[in-house]
């Protein structure tokens, strides 16, 4: 069924936006860790996007996307009041959230911070002490800092260029935090594949449970096509129905990153065609 865009907020102009969608039947069921599959228009592609927040009372879900290709570029042209043709969810297993004796560290990078936000909020709701570590290339590209501050007692920030917070990588902050506190109960990481792989490497010597949320290519999102398969502990798993969250120490990140490049050339073709046919109205 189509879903109306109730609110649109540009987080990074022209690059990343947040949409609040009217989807009561999805909001009623959505839990942290879940994602939706959407299709913008009749000839559109089905793409998965993690749910960044839900409001069960209002019957809405929030998604955040980075303009990366044709579908997200098309999404970016839609305005409040307009509809997305198909919205399907909630999909994927819920995050395993329970009361931990020590703090949980939620690490987010880039657009992944939005997805991490929902998980962090879930941990907060069951009474866990949530440490958020977020990173971006520079200050302007940082998402959801204020949203996280609402319930995270600690929000640590890093930027590649040092324009805000710690200059360097999120994993450096993570390592410091883990060294300072042996009681950390779990680390959750959502972001680009190299970041999640680095987080898993960082936590390994500490022996802390490390959960990563994978962003593999999907078609149906309901366990039918196997496009999203990942090797976890030597076994083939489907990110859509067995995940998207897995034990970071067991994921074959090299394979995941290779599989993510399968359609790069075609995605580029599609995006270029779109840019040619679509006159940008962003500046008007």
């Amino acid at each position: 069924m189509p879903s109306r865009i109730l609110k649109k907020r540009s987080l990074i102009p022209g690059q990343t936006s947040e949409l609040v969608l009217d989807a009561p039947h999805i909001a009623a069921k959505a839990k942290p860790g879940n994602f939706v599959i959407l299709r913008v228009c009749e000839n559109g592609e089905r793409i998965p996007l993690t749910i960044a927040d839900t409001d069960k009372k209002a019957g809405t879900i929030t998604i955040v996307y980075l303009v990366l290709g044709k579908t997200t570029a098309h999404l970016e042209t839609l305005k409040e009041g307009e509809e997305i043709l198909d919205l399907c969810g909630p999909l994927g297993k819920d995050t395993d959230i329970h009361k931990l004796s020590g703090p949980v560290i939620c690490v987010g990078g880039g657009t992944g911070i939005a997805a991490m936000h929902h998980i962090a909020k879930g941990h907060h709701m069951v009474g866990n002490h949530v440490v958020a570590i977020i990173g971006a290339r520079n200050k302007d590209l940082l998402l959801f800092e204020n949203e996280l501050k609402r319930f995270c007692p600690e929000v640590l920030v890093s930027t590649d260029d040092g324009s805000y917070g710690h200059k360097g990588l999120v994993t450096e902050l993570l390592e410091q935090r883990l060294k300072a506190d042996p009681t950390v109960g779990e680390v959750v990481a959502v972001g680009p594949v190299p970041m999640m792989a680095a987080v898993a490497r960082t936590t390994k010597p500490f022996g802390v449970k490390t959960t990563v949320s994978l962003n593999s290519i999907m078609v149906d999102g309901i366990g039918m096509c196997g496009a999203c398969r990942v090797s976890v502990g030597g076994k083939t798993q489907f990110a859509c129905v067995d995940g998207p969250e897995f034990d970071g120490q067991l994921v074959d990140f090299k394979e995941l990153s290779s599989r993510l490049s399968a359609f790069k050339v075609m995605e580029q073709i599609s995006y270029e065609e779109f840019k040619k046919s679509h006159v940008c109205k962003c500046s008007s």
Partner: protein
Amino acid sequence: MSANAPADKKKGKTPRTPMPEQPAKVRVTNFSEVALGYTPELALKEAHRCIQCKKPLCVKGCPVEINIPGFIKKIVEGDLDASYKVLRDTNSLPAVCGRVCPQETQCEGNCILGKKGEPVAIGRLERFVADTFMAKDSCEQLTGAQACVMEREDLKVACIGAGPASLTVAGYLSALGIKVHVYEALHELGGVLVYGIPEFRLPKAIVRKEIDAMRAQGVEFHTNWVGGKTITVQDLLDQGFNAVFIGVGAGLPKFLRVPGENLIGVFSANEYLTRVNLGRAFNFPKTDTPAYTGKNVAVFGAGNVAMDAARTAKRLGADRVMIVYRRTEKEMPARLEELHHAKEEGIELMCLNAPVELVGDEKGWLKSLTVQKMMLGEPDESGRCSPIACDGQFCDIPCDMAVIAVGTGSNPLIGQTTPGLELNKWGYIVVNEETGETSIPGVFAGGDIVTGAATVISAMGAGRRAAKEIARKLLS
């Protein structure tokens, strides 16, 4: 009777009327339907071959018990509307069945004329009647179906999944005036009929028309509702549905468990076909979903799905497409017509070969395939000879795309979210075979989620059995 005998004998010897089709050279360049269907003259000619058996064996071979002599007789009499009515009495999707049923093992396989000559082309006649009728608008289709049924707004049934099993339930129950709501996870209705079976074998417009006829009959369809996620069986019971039918198919693709199958360029048949059929990737970049175009393509498996994938790859521009199969052509499970069409289109059959490894380049892209020679041993429980590996006989084949079409397993979503639903060790739903009822009273299931991957018509047969039982319970 004796007066008819000489004529009947003659009928048995008349050759089957061929169906016009696109020439192989032309059709490999397009996705239009291969078989073009009978003209009225051809249909009449073929219908005349039926000897109208008193005890028709063909009907016994049909999972949905179509009155086959009955509908053929009406063709001979020139009353196609009446013929369609006979079809629709037991079959909610005749235009689909006429195209995709394995007739050679069902109705036509039992036809008495087939004992000495060629069986009546029942499937082609079914297709002809359904297509002729569907050319009319859906209003006429509706009035031509079950006339003036009193609607029973007090009774409502939910179907999860919109594939052949659920559509059969919806068609059957709505014809009795029961309100049916169908919940489908994907954005299009039809299940495997739209994501799995290619356009050149079953045009989507045909499926849409059959579904439109059901909509006109009062069935309500809800797309993008995932059974077990957006809505659970318990939710539906809580909402007051009198019965729930689970027809979610067996989606989860199986893999070969050989090294290299996660390389780029290796697809499950479901992914490949879903991209092309549902995502309409054959129109890329006009449509957004991309599909891979391999030059040397290997397809593992030899059922209808494997044939569909192979023929699709050919149409998308592959130079060489190989069906790699561990047994011989004789054991291939595909419909004869599909195998025949595939061979005509230049698909190579590499029989008695088993894949042992998929080899990639340093960037993770598939570049070749290692197969091992096989020979046939003794028949196994399934009656087919089991393949045995020939020691040391390996062969490397250049290959940049592979499609794995060796079957599917049960999808876990419904099982995970329906406490009390009995599943077998493979995750399929356990039902009473006669009624389709599951371990939860009022909850029924049928199709691939009960039997594992099977045919469209067997799923419809299961849907029909469950629908009969639901109707009996609700209306008695």
